[in-house]
């Protein structure tokens, strides 16, 4: 039986973590290929519903990453995001959503190695946790909607 390969979605900000991931690439540092990156202008733009939708659609783990506090390209987007994450994470935990599957981090544009570490650590911890079958079980819809423009 094939080993379970987690599906990880990463929500990152353009100015720090996306650039940091670019640096990982230019430095040719290898990491696990389970992650797909979605680019946002700032962590402040990341909607809570998108995180839930990611789990909805089959993600086993999520990474949310942005600029370090005080370094936000837009001054304070990451401060707002941080406050939101604190409340959101607590609420998710309260309702039984597995917050171990959502990793938050600050990765700056200079931290290429850190990005690789975060991805690798997340992939191995999700691999241990296993597929998020609990969520997928209740996410089944009577008919699967296919939305293409």
């Amino acid at each position, binding site marked *: 039986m094939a080993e379970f*390969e987690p*599906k990880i*979605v990463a929500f990152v900000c*353009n100015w720090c973590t*996306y*650039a940091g*991931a*670019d*640096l*990982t*690439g*230019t430095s*040719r*540092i*290898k*990491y696990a*290929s389970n992650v*797909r*990156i*979605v*680019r*946002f*202008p*700032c962590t*402040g*733009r*990341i*909607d*809570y519903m*998108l995180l839930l*939708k*990611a789990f909805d*659609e*089959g*993600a086993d783990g999520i990474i949310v990453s942005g600029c370090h506090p005080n370094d*936000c*390209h*837009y*001054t*304070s*987007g990451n401060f*707002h*995001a941080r406050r*939101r994450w604190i409340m959101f994470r607590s609420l998710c935990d309260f309702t039984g959503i597995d917050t171990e599957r959502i990793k938050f981090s600050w990765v700056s544009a200079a931290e290429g190695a850190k990005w*690789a570490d975060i991805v690798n650590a997340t992939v191995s911890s999700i691999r241990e946790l296993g597929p998020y079958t609990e969520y997928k079980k209740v996410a089944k819809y009577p008919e699967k909607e*296919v*939305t*293409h*423009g």
Partner: protein
Amino acid sequence: MSKIGVFVCHCGENISATVDCAKVAETAGNYDGVTFSVDYKYMCSDPGQNLIKSAIKDKGLTGVVVASCSPRMHEPTFRKACAEAGLNPFMCEMANLREHCSWVHEKGEATTEKAIDLVRILVEKVKYNHSLNEIKVPVTKTALVIGGGIAGIQASLDIANTGHKVILIEKDPSIGGHMSQLSETFPTLDCSQCILTPRMVEVAQHPNITLYTYAELESLEGFIGNFKAKIRKKSKSLDEKLCTGCGLCTTKCPVKKIPSEFNEGLGKRTAIYVPFPQTVPNKPVIDRKNCTYYIKGKCKVCEIVCPTGAIRFDQEDEIVELEVGAIVIATGFTVKQPDFFPEYGYGKYADVITGLQFERLASASGPTLGEIRRPSDGKVPEKIVFLACAGSRDPAKGIPYCSKICCMYIAKHAMLYQHKVHGGKSYVFYMDIRAGGKQYEEFVRRAIEDDGVNYVRGRVSRIYEKNGKLIVNGVDTLLNAMPVEIEADMVVLATAGVANEGAEELAQKLHISYDPYKFFAEAHPKLKPVETNTAGIFLAGACQAPRDIPESVAMASGAAVKVAGLFSQDELTREPIIAVVNRQAPPVYSSCVGCFLCVSACPYQAIEKEEIKNRNGEVVKSIAKVNPGLCQGCGTCVAFCRTKSIDIQGYTHEQMYSEVMALLNEY
């Protein structure tokens, strides 16, 4: 129906070594909405770009996805290529197959699968892209400079010399700032007023500069290129057009004992006064708080003696409205007074003075005509002690930073003292010597080696008076913390440089940020030292942090260039990645409910309230409106809006949703 073109790049071997590019292109070609899908060796090369352009023209493509390197690398390249082929550049997106895929994973099926996924999500996003046009904002080519010290003067002259109009406002009756109070400047020991006054006169005479002194900013509205400022010209009680500056009124005024601000309280002035003889403009001002006429209704001597009848006792403050395109803030700094220091006598000892007060004593036009004399009894001090870091570098006093200029001016003061008082003994208690500028270290060495100033490394714990002397209790850490006691005749405290009173209020009027010490905040500490986070407002000089004259001048010129750059175009173009509040047909007008929580979330205060009026002119609804000139496109408001009424072009709700959904559908 979308007609999307997918262009998968090999990037030589950078991508194709680990990713099966042909397979990616083939798979992408089968998606709904994709009508053209190829792979090619070098998409960014001329032939590669021509491939895109001809596909757009021949196939009528409505969207383009280039799967190659990072968008941070070539997004502008490919967007420009699309624009040249007639497709709106914002209909082009890039999938990062190189930095995020081929360079970081091993060759294999998983890597190609990832590449396919990354292309798919961008294809789904592009289906919801909209044509966007760059935003144009008109520019008023007049600058407002707030603060008439050396930084404000330099900035005004530089901007005026590029041919643009400048309005310079200064809250004191004269321009010149602290530099006009200095006797000599380090490291050259130039006479400060001699190098400053020609600049001051140049400002007054420059055809492009309008000077308002005794004036402050009342309010500010608007945004970059389009500010509306209200200036309050405080009443001088004078008709400036009639006044010739003869000065007769100041000699005849009977109220002569007001402590002079220019002389830092060490000298006296009259109620109608000019702060110093080289005042620009050379017009006196009546200090209404101390003038007998305003207090008791009697006197009017100045009016009687004035040869041109220029005195106007009933003159009121005037509000002037200005339209300006850029603002330079050069409001400077101030120093802590001795009353801040309980261990140094709470300001009770007249002979414990600040560095600025010492400057006035040393100055040839000062209250003692350049002789160093004790404020208490006018005697020449035989022993003088200078204390560095009085308040600075002291977290316990709430001032953890270094005030930068004190090490230099203490050396200067000690040298001036030694030059003026032969046989006098001077001591400097210091922690470190910070002399990092050009010729600065050599200057301090001269004070120690040539002029015999005694430098003691240690701090002073207490100063108290005994038998008419000031007992200074310090320590010499280089001699094993040996206690040092000096019976001084005068003590000069190099008190901390701090933000002006009213700095916070001014920052709030201007909507700029400031740090916990009320110094104004630059946009980026390394790379944007003269800009603020508010587009169109720039900083110059010590209002941003304590600094010396050459740095203030450099910063002022830097700010001036930024302003000149702004004014070099008639219109500003900005990337259209900004937030927009939706509008719908009446009676709804917008799904926005007007809770305005987005207004406080926006880091740039770019969201305003818009009143929707019906045909009768009655206000039907208040909704949010984004100012396209100020919005920088972070999207914080978008994630915050409960009704999702505000959306950000380029990262709309639809786009991000379709990206996430596409990611995992066939994952």
